[in-house]
C-alpha cells in the first residue's frame, strides 16, 4: 500500500477509537468544568497533553495535594510512552529530531493499530489513526465542559464500556501467536496484582515486564497485516 493509502486506512481504523476518545474527552471536560477548571484549561490540556490517563490523574490529584506530586503522578502514569517510543523508533526514518516529532503521534490506540507484527510499525497508519483520535479529544472536552452532561446519565448509557471495549478488541486482534497470548496474560496479571499495592501508573509500567518473555526466542516471523 502507498503512504497515502496507509494514511487513509489509519484514519479509517481510527474512527472507532476516536469515538471512544470523544466520549472520554466529554467525561473529562464535564468533570474538569465541575471541578472549577473552566472551559479553556481542560480543552487546552486535551489538545496539548494528548493523554487521557494523565489528564484524569492531574484532575483528581491537583486539588488534593501539592502541584509537584500531582504533576509527578500524571507524568508517571505516562511513563509507558517512553517504552512505546523506543519500540516505535526502529520504524521511524530521518534525524533524531524528526523522529521525536513523529513520535508525538503516539497514543495507546494508534500504537496498537499501527503494529504490523514482529515489533514493526506502519508510521503513515499511525499518523492517520492519531489524526482522527487527536481531533476527537479536545472537541469532546470542549463540548463536555460547555454542556456538562450528568456522569450518572453517561454511565446509564454504557459510555464507560466504550474505551475498555475498544482496548479488548485491539488486544484480541494482537493475539497472533501463543507467545503474544502468554505475554498479554502476564501483563494483565502483573497490572492486576500491583493495583492492590500501588498506583495505576506504576502497575501499568510494571506490566510491560510481561513482554520479557520475548527474550526466550528469536523475533517471530509474523504475517504482516
Amino acid at each position, binding site marked *: 500500500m502507498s503512504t497515502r493509502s496507509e494514511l487513509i486506512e489509519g484514519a479509517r481504523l481510527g474512527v*472507532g477509537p476516536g469515538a471512544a476518545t470523544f466520549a472520554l474527552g466529554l467525561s473529562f471536560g464535564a468533570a474538569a468544568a465541575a471541578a472549577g477548571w473552566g472551559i479553556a484549561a481542560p480543552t487546552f490540556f486535551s489538545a496539548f497533553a494528548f493523554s487521557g490517563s*494523565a489528564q484524569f490523574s492531574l484532575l483528581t490529584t491537583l486539588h488534593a495535594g501539592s502541584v509537584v506530586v500531582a504533576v509527578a503522578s500524571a507524568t508517571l502514569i505516562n511513563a509507558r510512552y517512553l517504552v512505546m517510543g523506543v519500540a516505535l523508533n526502529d520504524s521511524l526514518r530521518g534525524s533524531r529530531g524528526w523522529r521525536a516529532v513523529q513520535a508525538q503521534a503516539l497514543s495507546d490506540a494508534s*500504537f496498537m493499530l499501527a503494529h504490523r507484527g514482529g515489533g514493526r510499525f506502519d508510521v503513515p497508519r499511525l499518523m492517520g489513526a492519531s489524526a482522527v483520535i487527536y481531533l476527537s479529544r479536545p472537541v469532546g472536552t470542549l463540548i463536555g465542559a460547555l454542556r456538562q452532561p450528568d456522569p450518572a446519565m453517561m454511565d446509564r448509557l454504557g459510555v464507560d464500556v466504550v474505551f475498555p471495549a475498544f482496548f479488548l478488541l485491539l488486544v484480541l486482534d494482537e493475539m497472533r501467536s501463543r507467545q503474544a497470548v502468554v505475554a498479554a496474560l502476564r501483563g494483565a496479571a502483573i497490572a492486576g496484582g500491583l493495583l492492590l499495592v500501588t498506583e495505576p501508573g506504576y*502497575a501499568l509500567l510494571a506490566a510491560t515486564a510481561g513482554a520479557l518473555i520475548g527474550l526466550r526466542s528469536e*523475533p517471530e516471523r509474523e504475517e504482516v497485516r
Partner: protein
Amino acid sequence: MRLWGSIIAVSLANWLLKAGGPLVLGDRRLPPAARSVVALMAPVLLAGLIVVDLAGPGWGDLNGPQVLGVAVAGVAWALRAPMLVAVLVGAAAAAGVRLL
C-alpha cells in the same frame, strides 16, 4: 496559575516521554533480543490497560455491568461484528443491565 502551570508541565513531560526513545536512539536499531521484547509490547500494554481501566486503584472501581458490556463487545467482535458495532452492542448490554 497553579492550574495552568501544572497543565503545561504535564504536557511538556508527555512530549519528552514520547520523544525520549527516538532522541536517544536516533537511527541505531535495537539489538535482536530487545526487538523480541518490543514485538510483544503492544499486547502486553493493552492487556494491562484493560485491567487498570476496569479495576481501578485497589480494584475499587470494578463494576459488574461495565465488565459484562466489555465481555459482550468481545463476543460480538468474535462473531464477526465490525469493531464499532461490537463496542456499541457492549455499551447497550451494560445500559440494559443497569436499567433492570
